[in-house]
């Protein structure tokens, strides 16, 4: 068990903090393992479905960094809910530099 901290607010507005996250675990895996509402991770972490979309807290954006082209192409498919700080949770792997990271799960595209 690790000792990294992540705070996630789910699609229903409920905020949970995980304090024992292992290095290398992605936010998608973390969300799925803990039943965080709105994190589905359909494609299994392949950067191919946009069902683990999160907004990174502005204060953490520089450390987390921009999506690459492949990830951007997926985020572009949910443009109606995409923001400047959008990332796919499967592409953010926890590391000591990200200890304390705060993110909000993005809603799915509209009905």
């Amino acid at each position, binding site marked *: 068990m690790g000792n990294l901290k992540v705070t996630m607010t789910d699609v229903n507005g409920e905020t949970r903090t995980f304090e024992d996250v292992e290095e290398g675990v992605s936010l998608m895996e973390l969300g799925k393992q803990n039943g965080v509402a709105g994190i589905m991770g*359909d494609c299994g972490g392949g950067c191919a*479905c946009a069902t683990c979309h999160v907004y990174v807290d502005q204060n953490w954006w520089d450390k987390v960094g921009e999506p690459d082209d*492949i990830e951007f192409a997926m985020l*572009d498919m*949910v*443009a109606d809910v995409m923001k400047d700080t959008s990332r796919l949770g499967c592409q953010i792997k926890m590391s000591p530099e990200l200890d304390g990271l705060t993110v909000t799960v993005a809603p*799915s595209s509209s009905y």
Partner: protein
Amino acid sequence: MATQTIESKVSERVPLTPEEEKVLKEGSLTDYEIQAHPREYFRAMRHGDPIHYDEKLGSWLVTRHEDIWAVQSDPVTFSVHHGYHDFQARGLQDEFRAYLREHGGGYFPDAIMSDPPYHTRIRKLMENAFTAHRVKELEPRITEVVHDLIAEVIERGDGKCDAVKDIAIPLTIRVIVEQLGLDHGMEDKISRWSVAVTAQISAMQSRETMLENAKEIADLQNYLIGKMKEREQERKEDMISDLVHAEVTNEDGTKEKLTFEEAVSLVRATLIAGNDTTATAIGNLFYVITTKPGMAEMLEEAVQDERKLNRFVEEHLRNEPPVRALSRATTREVTVNGTTIPEGAHMLLVYGSGNDDETEYPEPRKFDPTRPNLGRHVAFGGGPHRCIGLALARMEIKVAAREIVKQMKNIKLAVPQEELRYVPTVATRTLESLPITYEKREG
């Protein structure tokens, strides 16, 4: 067990036109005419009876986007294992299985067509092969394969070809054959095998065609088993080797080797799923550019710009989803969108209707790559069973689109549109053949 309601709203029922009333009452997905031109039937169901029991087919059709999404997100209530295996080779199952046991090295249930938690382990094993980043690495090689194939077709001269049989089908077979590590030059055989496997979920087989198909599947299995035995002895850099030697990780962290039966089923599934549906998408690409005004020009513009091309491909999948419908079976009595479905009932998630749902995609028949919610289409299904090869499929379509524009121009349908025939099946909407004329574009 008491009825439970899954999270889906009761949608507003819209008054039907007399034509829609008629098709809803008399129509069935087993009718060839509806299989070929299903949109009115789908719309009548979405508006008047969104969870519709198709009596001739014996299946509940889930037709609204939101309901499809809700059902596929609950893999325990709506079982893929039962929906697939209990209805495979409908009505002829015992004979089908016995034939394969006798002639095809065994009956190998599809390990991936299963339910959690078993499914989760199998799926995990397959996922790494198909990530978008891994597929991106394959792009140069896929481009070479597609380039060469189209160049060969053009080389044959005369400015005519069958876009489905000469391009779409061999293209996707060549790509997957290379990934798996199978032999080249077997396109015709693999195409026949694919048809035989997918026919098992077509709901359209007679006993005679089932037996013909079973013979093809036996042939396929014997070929794959031979290849797998070779890789057991000598590992190579290909997916067959990976699967033959694969271990699944259990929840408690222990590892277990795949059984040989599981491995055969996964190699078979990768080969078939990896070519048939993507070929349909590429055939459809030729279909839309030859039948929809302005589409050829739109595609020519899109291939100049990566972002536009990605969006074009995604809208293409929404607009003409290759897989029309896939099955589930209820594991308890359950209410979806106001309709109660009994336990053990067969259902079809009708992706072809979900992608046309005007409450999700306004003006669904308009080809509009600027839609802001393209990623919500259900051409790849969704939930834990979402198509695992989706990134590879997108890449193949994208590369095909580029190469078509690069090497061909003035592409036209060579027969009247009314003469086009579709493969008779409930599962996909696939053109049997698409004769075209074109001119070679000089580089």
